[in-house]
Every structure is written in structure tokens, then in C-alpha cells.
């Protein structure tokens, strides 16, 4: 969990390291806040209705996905437009493993069944993460050893490839019909909720841990100036690929839990680009590369979506697009950046080929 408030801006964190560690009261306040949130979230299934539980489940799902995007794109500045692909891969892996487990449930006694199912769920989630990892490995090695926009461009296509494979490989995925799961291998909503909460919390924890580690510092150095990072001895390729792999495993696991919740997966729902848009909006709105930015962004965006935008499904996407543009122009460092009163560091790149313009307003 994070140590202090001031570390919300990574660029500054490296510069003012000695100053920010001075404050001792803030970390305790923050710790208490975090523990309170966790306790409330843990108690939620016993106290609230299914509707609120479902909402929270989706909130944690988006939080985990947004944090995973934050891990690669927020921290290193390498934009991923295809993160949904890993979610889709996870969803399909989960659906296939749960389906494979179905025949086995018939030959089990009622006492051993719950044990078998919990092992099956755990296995499915692990496999989802593992398969995502394996898909990400060649992608990362291929595109991240190069500087520049190769990664962003390649990732744009990855999601389309995923959708294409899911549609065309009918023997495995049943094509456009999708896979419907039997209720016999699906967990209770509260189990799914806890799993999703765990993933959201774990993703946030991972980002926090990396943020405060040497690895995180290296990643931010890459974002600010990759050439300089290389010069001072940072193994940029290894760092970028590692960050990408960690970031890809989270959506893989989330996809599995998502399938446990919806009990259905088809190419359209698993590889929807909208999910990626939402991840980007959440992270940008809250604050790119920060620990708490995505949490804040997820609460705001999911709240908005629930109360307002569910009414206009078509306009909702255009509004998200407009929001993205506005945030890039007026709040490049997100809400957390706005709240930070000290003079803002522009996101500009001193070594960029194009001339450096005045910082964004």
C-alpha cells in the first residue's frame, strides 16, 4: 500500500524523494482509509442487494483492468490499444476450462463437489492469467525492443486478431455462437464478487508496490526519457517487457471471473474495444501513472455510467471520446494532478523529434 500522498506524481517522486518521506501522519491516515475501504468491500455481500453487489463487481473489474493498463501505459508511456485482447483470451480460457470441468462434476459425491469446484475456479483463474502471459510474451518481445509507436500500433491489431481467431476457430470457440456455461460449474455471485474484489485490490497493490520499487522508478525514467534511462544503465527492454507481461496477466484473470459472472462468452463481448476505451478514460481521468488515480477514475466513470449513460448507449461512447479529448487538453495529469497544487510538470518530451511547444494548459 502507498506510503504517502505526495508520491502521486511519479515524475516528481524521483526528484523529491527525500522530502516526501518526511511526513509520517499522512501514511497512517491513508492506511486507515485503505483498511476501511477493504472492510466495507468485504462486508458488502452480507449487507447489500444483488444490484449494488453487481455494480461493485463491475467497478472492481474495471478497476483491475484500468490498473493493468496503468501499469504498462501509465508508467512507461507505451500506449496499449489492445488490452481487451488479454481480457478476451482470459474469458475464453475460463469458459473452456469450466466447460471441461462439467463432466467431472457428475461423478463426484455431494461432499467433495464444493472442493472440486473451488479447485476448478482457482485453476481457471490461474490458467487465464497464464495463457494471457504466454500470448503477451512474443508480442512484448517483438514490439517493445523497439522504441516509439511500434507497440501502440501492434496492440491496435492484436484485439482484432483475437476477435478473428475467436470467430474463425469454431472447433474450439464455437465461433460467433459463443460458449454458454452450465450453472453447475458457476459460482455464487458473492464468490465472483470476492474474486473480482481480490483482483482489483491485487492490481492496485501491484501498481503501488511497483510504484515504490526501483523497478517502478526505472519504468518512469523510461517514460520521461528512454534514451537517458538507457544511458544510466537501465535495461529498458527487459523492464518494458516485464511491465507488459505483468500488465497482461491481470486482464487474463479478470476475463475468467467475468465469464463466471456472465456465464456466456462470444467474440463480440470478449473482444469489445469499448472496454479498452473505458480503461484509458478511467486512468487518464484519475491520473496517469498514479496508484490512486485509477481507483478514483473507476468510481467516477462507473458511477456516471450507471446513473446517466446507461440511458443513452449510443451517446455514451461519443461522450467517453469527448471526455478523453478534454482530459488530454485540460487535465493531462488527471484529477490527482489537478489536486496537486504545486507547479505542474508538463508531460512533454524534451527529446521528442518535433519541437517542444509550451506545456498544455
Amino acid at each position, binding site marked *: 500500500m502507498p506510503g504517502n500522498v505526495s508520491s502521486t506524481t511519479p515524475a516528481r517522486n524521483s526528484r523529491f524523494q527525500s522530502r516526501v518521506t518526511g511526513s509520517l501522519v499522512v501514511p497512517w491516515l491513508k492506511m486507515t482509509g485503505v483498511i476501511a475501504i477493504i472492510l466495507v468491500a468485504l462486508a458488502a455481500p452480507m449487507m447489500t442487494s444483488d444490484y449494488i453487489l453487481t455494480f461493485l463487481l463491475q467497478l472492481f473489474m474495471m478497476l483491475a483492468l484500468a490498473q493493468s493498463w496503468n501499469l504498462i*501505459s501509465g508508467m512507461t*508511456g507505451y*500506449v496499449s*490499444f489492445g488490452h481487451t485482447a488479454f481480457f478476451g483470451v482470459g474469458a475464453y480460457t475460463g469458459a473452456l476450462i469450466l466447460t471441461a470441468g462439467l463432466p467431472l462434476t457428475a461423478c463426484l459425491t455431494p461432499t467433495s463437489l464444493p472442493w472440486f469446484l473451488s479447485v476448478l475456479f482457482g485453476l481457471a483463474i490461474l490458467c487465464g492469467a497464464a495463457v494471457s502471459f504466454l500470448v503477451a510474451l512474443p508480442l512484448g518481445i*517483438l*514490439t517493445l525492443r*523497439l*522504441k*516509439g*509507436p*511500434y507497440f*501502440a*500500433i*501492434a496492440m*491496435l*491489431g492484436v484485439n*482484432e*486478431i483475437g476477435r*478473428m481467431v475467436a470467430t*474463425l476457430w469454431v472447433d474450439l470457440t464455437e465461433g460467433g455462437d459463443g460458449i454458454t456455461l452450465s450453472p453447475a460449474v458457476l459460482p455464487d455471485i458473492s464468490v465472483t464478487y470476492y474474486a473480482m474484489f481480490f483482483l482489483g485490490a491485487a492490481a492496485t497493490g501491484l501498481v503501488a508496490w511497483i510504484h515504490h520499487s526501483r523497478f517502478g522508478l526505472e519504468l518512469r525514467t523510461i*517514460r520521461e526519457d*528512454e*534514451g537517458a534511462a538507457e544511458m544510466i544503465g537501465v535495461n529498458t527492454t527487459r523492464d518494458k517487457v516485464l511491465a507488459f507481461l505483468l500488465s497482461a496477466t491481470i486482464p487474463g484473470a479478470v476475463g475468467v471471473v467475468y465469464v463466471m459472472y456472465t456465464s456466456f462468452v462470444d467474440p463480440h463481448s470478449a473482444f469489445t*474495444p469499448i472496454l479498452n*476505451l473505458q480503461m*484509458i478514460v478511467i486512468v*487518464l481521468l484519475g491520473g*496517469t501513472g498514479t496508484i490512486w488515480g485509477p481507483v478514483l477514475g473507476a468510481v467516477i466513470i462507473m458511477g456516471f455510467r450507471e446513473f446517466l449513460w446507461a440511458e443513452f448507449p*449510443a*451517446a455514451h*461512447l*461519443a461522450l*467517453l*471520446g*469527448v*471526455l*478523453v*479529448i478534454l482530459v*488530454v*487538453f485540460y487535465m*493531462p495529469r488527471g484529477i490527482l494532478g489537478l489536486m496537486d497544487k504545486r507547479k505542474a510538470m*508538463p*508531460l*512533454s*518530451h524534451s*527529446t*521528442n*523529434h*518535433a*519541437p*517542444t*511547444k509550451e506545456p*498544455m494548459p
Partner: protein
Amino acid sequence: MESLDILFIVQLLIAGLLAGALYALLACGLNLVFGVMRIINVAHAELMLIGAYFAYVLYTFFGLHPLISLVIVVPVLFGLGQLMQRLFIERVVGQHELSSLILTYGLSIVLMNLGLAVFSADFKSIPVLQGSIVLGEMITIPITRSTAALVAIVITLMVYLFLKKTRLGKAIRATSEHPKVAEICGIDVVRVRMLTFGLATAMAGAAGVMLSTIYSFSPETGADFILKCFAIIIIGGMGSFSGAFAGGILLGVAEALVAGFFTTQWSEMVAYALLVLVLLIRPTGLRGIAYAR
């Protein structure tokens, strides 16, 4: 049998060249913008669709032939591109890649959803050009495709000559090579960037008009094209005009060959296969400038 095979291959090559010319027109504009501003315009295919829908509107309401509406669409999109550069893109020039990529991504989402709201997700087309030219006994060339390819090649060539032969074109190339030195030499780089984005938008618009005569299109068609364009500019080399042209033709031909010998579904994957191959063997592309940040 032997001659049949050769005729079949020639037919495929011609089909590939014709499709490739359109890709080339689209990708050249994208690469022009990248060369001058180091910005990947994710909304480039949506600009193309603006052209296509513009031609569609002119055709349905005024009965204008797409080839005539080209005269209207291209200047209007040239202006629109300059406006977009002024209002949006200029603000992220020189910023971190994150800003420009996400900004243009946001623009593409907004444009696509505006398109969905105005024109719905139904596929539209402008079926004005028909028939085909028959060469010999086996080779047939559809008139739609050859007209589109001809227009595409003429426009690409005109832009190329503009870049090579005129003072303004020289200013664009200078800005692309080194913006700071260009500015010191008295080039108004802000204007050059407006001009560049205007040109790229106009090229995309022209590609859209020609596209509307060949394929049916919907606001969501952009995704396929932008992905292919990205593959093309990596294959050809990022920032290189001639590389984008070569890459476009190469992709068109490769797709046609794969579609001819295997299936159409496989041909959708050709762009990615070529992309992976180029990234493995020659990351700077056929004619690319080394990308240094």
C-alpha cells in the same frame, strides 16, 4: 494448363495492384503526418470515411457522380484537416506520444459514433460504375477498381511532385527532417503542419470517395483500414512517403495472392504476418527513417 496458371497469377497481381493503390493513397497521408509531426493519427480512417459519406450524401441528394464530387470533397476536407490541426492536433505536437495517440483515438471514437448517430450502422454504397474491361480471354479488370486505382495513383503522384518540386513541399520536407532547424531557417512550422494535416486529410477523403464506389461501408469500416494502414507504414518505413506507397502496393498484391490461392479470411491476416516479419527482420521498414525519440 500452364498458361491458365500464369493468367490466374496475372489476374491476381492486377487485382492486388488496384487494391494496393488505394491503400497506398491512404497510407501516404498517414505517413506524411507522422513524418512531419511524429504523430500517429489513429483517426485517419475516420477521415477517409468522412470523404466516403460526403460522396454518399452528394450522390443521394444531388445525384452527383463520385468522380465529380471528388472536386468538392477534396478541397473541403483539405480545409477540414487544417481546422482539425489548428483546433486539436497542434496542441499535442511535441508532447509525449501518450497524448497524441490518445487524442487521435478519442477523435476517432467521437467521429465513429457521430457517423453511427447520423448514418446508422447500415452499410452504404454508391453503385455508379459498373462493368469491366476484358483483356485477352482470361483477364478481367473491374472498371470501379481500375478507376479508383487510377485516381489514387494520380493523387499520390501529384502530392509526391508537390513535395519534391515546390517550395512549400520543400518546407514540408525540411520540417519533417528537422523542425527546429526548419524554424530557424524561417519556415513557419505551424503553417507547415496545418498544410500537412490538410493534405493528409484531403488524401484520406479522396481515398474515401473512391472506396465508396468499390466497397460498401459503415461508420465501423474504419477499423479494418486503419490497421492495414499501420501495417503498411511499418512495412514501408515510418515517415517515408515512398515507403508507404511501396508498402501499400505490396500489401495489396500479397492480399490478392493469398486470397487467390487460399481463402479471403486468410488474406485478412496477411497485413499482420507482413508486420511481424518486418519487425523481426528490418524494424525500420523498407525505406524507413530510424525512429529515435
